[in-house]
C-alpha cells in the first residue's frame, strides 16, 4: 500500500471535501491515488481511488438525496471512511481493509432503483479508474485485471478518451504500418 501517512492525510482531505460538497476536489484526490496505485498496484490503493471517485459522483447528484435511505447510506459511507482512517492511524491494516470493504457492502443494504444507481456508480468508477491507469502506461489487460473490469468495457471506455492522441503514443508512421499489413497479406507462401 502507499505510505500510511499519505493515505491518512488523503482520507482527512476526503472528509473535508465531502463536508464542503467539493466534488472536483474529491475527483482530484482520487486521481492523486491513481498515480501511486499505478506503480504499487495494490488492492487497497485501488479501492480508495474507486471509493473516493464514486463518492464524488454520488455527491454530484442532488436527486439521490431524495431517496428514503439516503441519510442512512451517506452516514454509513462517511463513518467507514473515518473508521478506516482511525484504523490506519492505529496501524491496524486488517481493520482498515475491513472498513473499506464495508463501504461497498452498504450498497447491498439499499433497495430499489437507488441500489441500482449506486451499483452503477461504483461499476463506472472502476472503469474510469482502469482507464486512468491504462493512460499511465500500464497495459490494458493488466489494468482490467487490477480493477476487475472486462477488456470489452475498458476498450470501449478507453476508445472515447484522448489516450491515443498524445504524441508519445505514436511509434511508427502510418505508411510503414500499412506496409506491414499489405506485405503479410500479399506474401505468397506454400
Amino acid at each position, binding site marked *: 500500500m502507499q505510505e500510511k501517512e499519505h493515505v491518512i492525510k488523503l482520507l482527512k482531505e476526503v472528509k473535508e471535501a465531502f463536508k464542503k460538497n467539493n466534488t472536483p476536489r474529491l475527483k482530484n484526490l482520487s486521481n492523486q491515488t491513481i498515480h501511486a496505485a499505478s*506503480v504499487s498496484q495494490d488492492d487497497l490503493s485501488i479501492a480508495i481511488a474507486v471509493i473516493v471517485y464514486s463518492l464524488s459522483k454520488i455527491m454530484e447528484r442532488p436527486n439521490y438525496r431524495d431517496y428514503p435511505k439516503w441519510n442512512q447510506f451517506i452516514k454509513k459511507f462517511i463513518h467507514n471512511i473515518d473508521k478506516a482512517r482511525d484504523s490506519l492511524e492505529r496501524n491496524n491494516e486488517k481493520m482498515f481493509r475491513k472498513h473499506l470493504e464495508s463501504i461497498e457492502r452498504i450498497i447491498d443494504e439499499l433497495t430499489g432503483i437507488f441500489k441500482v444507481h449506486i451499483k452503477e456508480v461504483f461499476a463506472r468508477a472502476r472503469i474510469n479508474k482502469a482507464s486512468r491507469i491504462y493512460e499511465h502506461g500500464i497495459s490494458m489487460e493488466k489494468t482490467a485485471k487490477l480493477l476487475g473490469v472486462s477488456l470489452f468495457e475498458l476498450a*470501449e471506455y478507453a476508445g472515447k478518451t484522448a489516450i*491515443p492522441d498524445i504524441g508519445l503514443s505514436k511509434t511508427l508512421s502510418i505508411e510503414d504500418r500499412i506496409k506491414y499489413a499489405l506485405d*503479410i497479406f500479399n506474401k505468397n507462401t506454400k
Partner: protein
Amino acid sequence: MKAIVFDSGTIINFAMNGILDILKSLKSEFNGKFIITEAVKEEVIDKPLHIKKFELEALMIKKLFDDGVFELPYDIVVKKELIAKRDSLFNMLNHVFYARNEFVHIVDKGEVSSLAVSLLLKEKGIDNVLAVDERTARMLCERPENLTQLLRKKLQTSVDMKGDLSFLSKIKVIRSSELMYLAYKKGLVKLKSPKVLDALLYASKFKGCSISFDEIEQMKKLENV
C-alpha cells in the same frame, strides 16, 4: 507459412463493431494462419461468455474459433516452449521500468503470450505480424523510450528503464485499423458508400484501437477519401 497473431483487443474491436464477418473474409484471402493464444481465447471467449453484457460477442467470436478462422498455435509451437517463452518474457518486461523504488508491472500474461508467439514464429522463420490495439505492448515493441517518458510524465516521478528491449523490435505490429483499411482496399466490406473507410477507422478508434485522429486522416488521404 505465414501468420497473424491476434491479441484480445483487436478481436474485441471487430466484435463490438459487429463486423467479425470482415475478419472471416480477411482470413479467406490470407492463405495463412490467424493465431490466438489460450490466454487470449480466455479473454475474448471463455470469460465474456459469463458476462451477460458481452455474451453475444463471445458467442460470435467462439463461432469463428470453432470454424477454424482462429486457431491455437500448437501446430507450429510446442506448448511447453510457449509457456517457457511467455514466462521469461513476462518476468523480464515487468522488471524494466523502475519508479518509486519498485518495478512497475506493465503487462499481463495474455499480451505477453501473444508477443511470445510472434517471437517464436520469427525464430522458426515464419513470417508474422502481431495485431494489437492497446498502446503499451505496441510501445514496448516499437518505442520503449516513449513508454519511459510517458510513465515519467503520468506518474509524476523519475522512471528508469533497466534492460534492453531491442529484441522486441523484430515484432511487426498492426492494429484493427490497418486490418479494416486492408479489408476496404481489397473490397471485402459489403457496405458501399464514400464514407465507408472513414466509418471503419473511426469505429476502430472508438472501440479501443490506439490510433490518433491524425493517423486516421492520413490513412484516408492515402485512399483519396
